[in-house]
């Protein structure tokens, strides 16, 4: 198995996930006025995560040139590769495009939970790959917040 990613690239992917997420929530807020507040708040939180990943990446590139991720058995690399695979998780795709087919708030919330789930699993893979120095704890904190988002989305779904 090759080593397809270095830490810089992995963080770049994480940034893209957050950008996609924020865009998805903002577009959804425009389409579903009844959920506007919630979706706008979630978008703002994803913006915050984006900033965290950006600063982690900057810090990392300041200390050493694109170090390979720490992953002795190659499993996490493999996983990141799978996650980056468009068949599961197309990082390059704009999830807002999926919005076109969504009519009911319930379906929107379900889709949002799916996007959050994908991102969490990617970050679990990322966490496996980065050293403490590279910000393992920060990734962990973001995972917890994304789980919190799912809890919020689920609560909203129950309340519909």
């Amino acid at each position, binding site marked *: 198995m090759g080593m397809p990613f270095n830490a810089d690239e992995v963080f770049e992917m994480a940034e893209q996930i957050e950008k996609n997420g924020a865009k998805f929530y903002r577009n959804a807020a425009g389409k579903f006025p009844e959920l506007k507040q919630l979706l706008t708040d979630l978008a703002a939180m994803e913006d915050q995560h984006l900033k965290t990943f950006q600063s982690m990446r900057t810090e990392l590139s300041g200390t050493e040139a694109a170090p390979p991720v720490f992953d002795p058995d190659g*499993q996490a690399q493999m*996983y990141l590769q799978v996650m980056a695979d468009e068949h599961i998780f197309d990082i390059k795709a704009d999830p807002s495009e999926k919005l076109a087919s969504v009519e009911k708030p319930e379906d929107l919330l379900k889709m949002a939970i799916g996007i959050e789930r994908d991102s969490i699993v990617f970050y*679990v893979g990322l966490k*496996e790959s980065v050293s403490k120095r590279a910000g393992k704890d920060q990734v962990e904190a973001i995972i*917890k917040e994304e*789980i919190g988002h799912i*809890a919020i989305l689920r609560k909203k779904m129950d309340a519909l």
Partner: protein
Amino acid sequence: VQQVYPAQKRKMTVQLNAFEIFDIAMQIEQNGSRFYNKAAEIFDDPEARKMFLRLAEWEIKHEQTFSSMRKQLSESNQEPGTFKPEQKLPVPKAMAGLAVFGIKSEPTDELKGTESQDEILRRAIEKEEDSIIFYDGLMDFIPIKADKDKIDDIIKEEMQHIRILNRLRKRKE
């Protein structure tokens, strides 16, 4: 494990103890195994069937790992001054997530046999993702390094399952 722990009836303020968390993990693995056995019945492709049966076996192994960890926990509890697993744990954010994913341990999403192959693979991947997230949250409650490593291994194996499922999915396209 008895019927799934009634996490689904609880709200976000849920508090679980360590035993209950292990019960949910075991239930997730049992459900996963049942799901894969059923998938093996539905697929006609012999290679895919073989793969599903293997996945079902692997999930049972995970269940056994969780079961022995749970047992150890109850044995260590006999010693005075140790971690009390029956104590309700605090409710950090991850706990809300545990409750969210505990819900997924319900066997309600069993396969009917009418699903398309792509739908089955998609749902299998989703289930694997849920279990990874649940186990990642579970790590917060494990005080012993050796146990953390075991859970870490299970997470990596579930990641490997996603890879296998993804390959099957690609082949079907």
